């Protein structure tokens, strides 16, 4: 009964009307996540009050530690780079309806293989050989690691979320096995690590920013993948598969190939993140690779609604949160995990806010009255 009565007046909207309609639709994807952030901040304030701490001080310190000074911005952006890439590791498979949460594993393992592949080259190869070999090795490692999750899912029906999470533990064990064993650098008395790749092979800073090139890589990869997902037949087929796998099959789309290639792209992103952690920050592979970027990336991707373009700004936000962690810990006498409590709250509130989509007529260009 709605057919003739409701839509007759809207049969031929103007181009401007259509554009406004589109804007109203997209506004929903910005307003609801912002609302979720606000609710999480409020809940976290209650948590702080219960601890007898001032929420105001907390958010002031958060601002200062993350975004208040040039130094804090630099600190934030250094953390943003891996977050963009690990968030992409979640976002691309999510477009196909896969929930991959093991980006951390791909990051750790890729960082490790990148550091290891450099070892035999160090004595004779120049940096312009060593660096691309390391980058490529890391990307391939990540692609195979997460691609395996996609293949297991498609060919064996194994839940990709659980598989990717469990494979994270395998990745950590592989790292520890070698770093504490045969590949341990005997000259380093502190943390068990591989031998350093040497200052010549380290990635430099973006001129004028004091932030390594990983950030630029992350931003460019995010933009490229954003275009791939929205403007290519691959992206289209991936969205069809993610939106309705039965319809995708009925259209003869190669669902398996799509899943494996999307997970490989995702893994390669996490792998590149691992490369930059080794080649721009650590200079070697060790336990410091396990810094939680892969897990925070999940949060970034969900908040960005798995939109590659939106991931970069959201990653800055979480980079700032992480950057401010130390300052908050020192100034307010709060434990290290406090920022994680906030992150966890954001995630839960965000998942709950998913149920709000489509409920507000404000965002529905077809709603009347």
């Amino acid at each position, binding site marked *: *009964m709605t057919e003739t009565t409701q839509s007759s007046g809207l049969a031929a909207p103007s181009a401007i009307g259509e554009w406004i309609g589109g804007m109203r639709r997209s506004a929903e994807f910005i307003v609801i996540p912002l609302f979720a952030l606000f609710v999480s901040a409020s809940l976290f304030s209650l948590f702080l009050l219960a601890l007898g701490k001032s929420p105001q001080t907390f958010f002031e310190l958060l601002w200062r530690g993350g975004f208040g000074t040039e130094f804090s911005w630099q600190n934030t952006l250094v953390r943003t780079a891996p977050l963009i890439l690990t968030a992409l590791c979640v976002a691309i498979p999510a477009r196909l309806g896969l929930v991959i949460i093991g980006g951390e594993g791909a990051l750790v393992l890729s960082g490790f293989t990148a550091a290891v592949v450099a070892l035999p080259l160090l004595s004779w190869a120049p940096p312009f050989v060593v660096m691309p070999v390391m980058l490529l090795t890391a990307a391939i490692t990540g692609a195979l690691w997460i691609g395996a999750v996609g293949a297991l899912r498609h060919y064996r029906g194994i839940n990709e979320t659980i598989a990717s999470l469990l494979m994270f533990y395998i990745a950590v064990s592989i790292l520890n096995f070698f770093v504490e064993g045969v590949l341990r650098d005997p000259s380093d008395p502190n943390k068990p690590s591989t031998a350093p790749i040497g200052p010549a092979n380290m990635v430099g800073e973006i001129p004028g920013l004091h932030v390594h090139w990983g950030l630029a890589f992350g931003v460019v990869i995010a933009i490229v993948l954003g275009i791939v997902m929205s403007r290519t037949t691959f992206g289209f087929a991936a969205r069809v598969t993610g939106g309705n796998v039965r319809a995708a099959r009925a*259209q003869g789309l190669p669902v398996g190939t799509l899943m494996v290639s999307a997970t490989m792209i995702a893994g390669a992103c996490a792998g590149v993140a691992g490369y930059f952690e080794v080649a721009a920050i650590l200079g070697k592979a060790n336990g410091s690779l396990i810094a939680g970027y892969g897990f925070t990336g999940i949060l970034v991707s969900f908040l960005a609604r798995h939109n590659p373009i939106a991931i970069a700004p959201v990653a800055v936000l979480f980079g700032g949160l992480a950057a401010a962690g130390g300052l908050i810990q020192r100034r307010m006498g709060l434990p290290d995990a406090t920022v994680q409590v906030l992150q966890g709250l954001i995630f839960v509130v965000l998942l709950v806010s998913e149920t709000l989509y489509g409920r507000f007529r404000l965002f529905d260009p077809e709603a009347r009255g």
Partner: protein
Amino acid sequence: MSDKDRPAVGVETVGMTKIFGSLTALEDASIKVRPGTLHALLGENGAGKSTLVKCMMGFYQPTRGKLLVDGQEVVVRNPRDAMAYKLGMVYQHFTLVPSLTAAENLIVSRPDCPSVIDWKSEIGALEAFLNRMPFKVPLRTPVSSLSAGEKQKLEILKQLYLDRRFLILDEPTSVLTPGEADEMLGLLRGMVEAGEITILMISHKFREVTAYADEVTVLRRGRQVGSGLVKDLTRDDMARMMIGDTKIRERAARTSVEKSATVLDLTALYASDDDGLPAIEAIDLKVKAGEIVGIAGVSGNGQSELVEVLSGQRDLDDGRILIHGHPFEPSRGAMAKLKVFSLQEEPLRNSAVPRMSVAENMALRSFDQPPISRSGWWLKPGPMKAIARELIARYRVKTPSPETPIENLSGGNVQRAVLARELSGDVDVLIVANPCFGLDFASVAEIRSQIMDQRNRGAAVLLVSEDLDEILELADRVAVMSEGRISYVAPIGETDRQTIGHAMAGHH
């Protein structure tokens, strides 16, 4: 059992109105169901039938209007209130617990069911109750192994066991064979005539309404547009009340097609269901160019698995599909080359991506071909939108814009959008499954006539349908599926409803 001789309950609504936001789902419906009668409620999808009965059952609170039970005005705030007035409803989908037996289902459904159940005495009481009932259902079998007909009977028995005296049945025969439907409605009719119960039956099937109902009320677009004694009304009267002055597209005539070659050739197809059990076995079927082969059967006898196999949604365990003599794998390339298209039931589940736009959904077939993508990998939104605009106009899809997510369209328009996508090019093979399920008259006529058009143009059409009338109207040949096998095949001119119904029930 009850203090009165005739315990049936009568229900009346006066000026019942229900408004959801900007939508008036039901307006000023006054319907009187006399005790001890079988009253049919007719109307198209979205006419307000379910809104009306949900207001009666207390699922919705009416915006305005009164409800009278046995002449007394009552307020039904929730289903529990309805229960107190002995009102009960049997839903279209089953509400039984599959792993429990029939007896367990009945006993645990009682509101006064004790926490510790004395099964021996309960089952004794249940058997005594069943002896008074015309329906028989095996009590000790788990519900999951009952047939659809038995489950439907059990649902009705549950209502009677709970001493409901006014039963609302929502399309009770949709999952039954014609034979089962007649048996069940006949038994209910007997109870109604004995004054045991009153029935308000939502139905689409005129045949059942004329054969079993005393009175009928027709709703259209939320308004009550007619009511009366069934014996005073013809089918045409009722149909006209249901659809109003909507123009129905002329049915495409069946043109005679001279002897033609086999296009779709299925040989010994085997496939399994989601649990790995055999779903279709040894399916052999040939469809010629310019022929519609209708596959009839009670739902759940392997028809959906067969369609899934042919459309690439399910892997084949064994067997061979030939199209024009070429082996067919349901891949994108083969579908395009051999011109295989499909029109499936529940398009939002099977053939469209709900959250993507109408334009994108219309491009599912052609997004990797010129003009949308000349290179095969770069998409051009311009041509995509242009094609969508043209199809929207040509197939009269009612949508606010090509950018609207397809899930916002009504069912008929979703199916029309899919139809536009699948049938706008050259079609050699067309796989159709329950294409008109849940659609209004105008859309049904339109879709059926498009299917007939494709046949007349020389397509080989395989039509799977649970609606026997649809098969009788469209098919050149009918095949019946029962328990995963094709049990009966006959040209449409050499068979009739009874014979097909018999084969559907598994007797052949």
